[in-house]
């Protein structure tokens, strides 16, 4: 026990003096996520806000053919812009989100009581133009049904005749659950913080020590190698934990800079949330520390270990990617799968759905069990003769 603590304390202290380890574990890992996230969210939210509520500026071609229509749209917030020569090119090149074109025979069809055609020109492959297009489309529909009702009334008929089915929408989402959807990428940042926070240390403590030839004198001491391994894993775990806690706190602070309530959303990134996230992520700290050490023990050099671990960085991202492209219904078994359980659990917490103690327990037991098994494999690798001897 004492020798493990000795190794642990030495590794923690020595690596606090290493700028790269400290920077990646305590600065880069925890802060990059929240900063990118807030910047991204602010841009997205404010853009959507202006598009959803502000005046809608749309170039109109042939406005002179339908003054009444234009007046009706103006009442709904349309600000007609002067016509442009080549609307197709304009939407393709994003000079305009959408262009409204009124044909010359609009008035003739209108007076004859035939459906009068208007054209919306847009490019649906352009990101972020959908809001403008659907707003304009809704305005046109609204105008159309209003005029239709007036025509029916003029003929002494109830407008209800033309609307046999009325849709009444009941959205069951809560402000918090809508925010959770927005935050679906957030669980990945926690996992990333653990991985990046522990990576350099894991490489340094095994591949690095071997490369600097200090593993051989270390193993000449009367301490079993598994005790040395445990001391090192402890140090890696502490750095990963520090990285995770800082990340969680940073997100909690960053949450205050998000105008989510403007979108009718709310979220709770308070102390309770942070505590639950850290608890749920604990097994990943052990798992990554062991996994990274195992990889570093196999690698022939520091650089090789770094390459392998950078490639492995895709692993923690997998559940987030899978969940993003094929949303599946959360089920209890998912908590038994490390990484997937954390993804599902943190997502639910963000959406305001309480995660049961049983599920958290399942994630902890299975995660630590996986780390333990991998730890045994690492201990075996640590006993090999080749480990201590640098080429």
């Amino acid at each position: 026990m004492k020798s493990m603590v000795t190794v642990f304390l030495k590794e923690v202290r020595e690596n606090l003096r290493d700028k790269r380890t400290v920077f990646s574990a305590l600065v880069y890992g925890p802060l990059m996520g929240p900063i990118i996230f807030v910047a991204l969210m602010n841009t997205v939210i404010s853009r959507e806000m202006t598009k959803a509520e502000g005046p809608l500026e749309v170039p109109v071609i042939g406005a002179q053919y339908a003054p009444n229509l234009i007046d009706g749209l103006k009442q709904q917030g349309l600000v007609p812009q002067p016509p442009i020569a080549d609307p197709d090119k304009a939407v393709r090149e994003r000079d305009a989100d959408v262009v409204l074109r009124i044909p010359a025979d609009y008035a003739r069809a209108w007076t004859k009581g035939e459906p009068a055609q208007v054209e919306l020109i847009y490019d649906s492959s352009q990101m972020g133009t959908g809001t403008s297009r659907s707003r304009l489309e809704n305005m046109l529909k609204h105008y159309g049904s209003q005029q239709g009702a007036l025509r029916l009334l003029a003929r002494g008929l109830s407008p209800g005749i033309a609307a046999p089915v009325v849709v009444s929408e009941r959205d069951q989402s809560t402000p918090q659950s809508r925010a959770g959807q927005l935050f679906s990428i957030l669980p990945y940042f926690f996992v990333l913080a653990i991985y990046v926070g522990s990576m350099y240390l894991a490489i340094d403590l095994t591949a690095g020590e071997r490369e600097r030839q200090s593993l051989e004198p270390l193993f000449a001491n009367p301490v079993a190698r598994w005790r040395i391994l445990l001391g090192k894993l402890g140090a890696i775990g502490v750095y990963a934990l520090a990285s995770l806690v800082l990340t969680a706190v940073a997100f909690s602070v960053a949450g205050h800079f998000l105008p989510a309530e403007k979108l009718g959303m709310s979220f709770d990134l308070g102390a309770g949330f942070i505590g639950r996230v850290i608890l749920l992520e604990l097994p990943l700290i052990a798992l990554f520390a062991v996994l990274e050490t195992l990889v570093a023990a196999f690698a022939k050099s520091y650089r090789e270990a770094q390459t392998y671990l950078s490639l492995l960085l895709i692993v923690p991202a997998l559940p987030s990617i899978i969940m993003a492209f094929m949303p599946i219904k959360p089920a209890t078994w998912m908590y038994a799968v490390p990484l997937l359980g954390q993804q599902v659990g943190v997502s639910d917490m963000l959406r305001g759905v309480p995660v049961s103690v049983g599920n958290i327990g399942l994630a902890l037991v299975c995660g630590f069990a996986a780390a333990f098994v991998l730890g045994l494999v690492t201990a075996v690798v640590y006993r090999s003769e080749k480990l201590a001897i640098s080429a």
Partner: protein
Amino acid sequence: MIEVKDLHKAFGKVKAVDGVSFAARDGEITGLLGPNGAGKTTTLRMLYTLMKPDSGQVLVDGIDAAVDPIAVRRRLGVLPDARGLYKRLSARENIDYFARLHGIETRLMHQRREKLVDALEMRDILDRRTEGFSQGQRVKTAIARALVHDPKNVILDEPTNGLDVMATRGLRTFMRNLKAEGRCVLFSSHIMQEVAMLCDRIVVIANGRVVADETPDALRAQTGEANLEDAFVKLIGSEEGLAA
């Protein structure tokens, strides 16, 4: 007391150590002499249990290294071929780390460290980080680190490698003092003058085998050569890999 009985170790098809036996006694300096690649480092690595022999036995103070490697390591002070200091730690921290790994309590650790620091004349570098140390300063720190638990048996792998004349002389005096304290000192070298000057007993290794195990005088008598250098060349069978 270190006893080695018929050690064998092969890496693939290469027989690095092919039946090495010798004994290094307390109060003596035993030199392991051989050209580069003769199997000296591999033999020593089996002694301090970093490697397991394919066959054969290592006894340190009568303890079998295969049975109780931890106890063997407790009785050994080892300066490996790889010095490997922690460059982000000071010399003092390097020494203290190993002392604690040996479970030495703080007060005793201070005593032992101070003694070694004086003996090795390394007071001026004690609180400097080892990054940027000269070869001599590195060896001093590594030796202090290896001996802080006051071991009865000392193994030094090519201790004077890369040292200048002054540092080498200082190290020789230090080794003679270890001998005077009654310790068993075993060191390897490929420099014959050094071995001849220091050793009570010389074990000559070539191609993984012991070709001689004698006192320097007996060695001269055995080969019939008045000059030690000629004696060695005759034993090893070639001049390759030996330095004067």
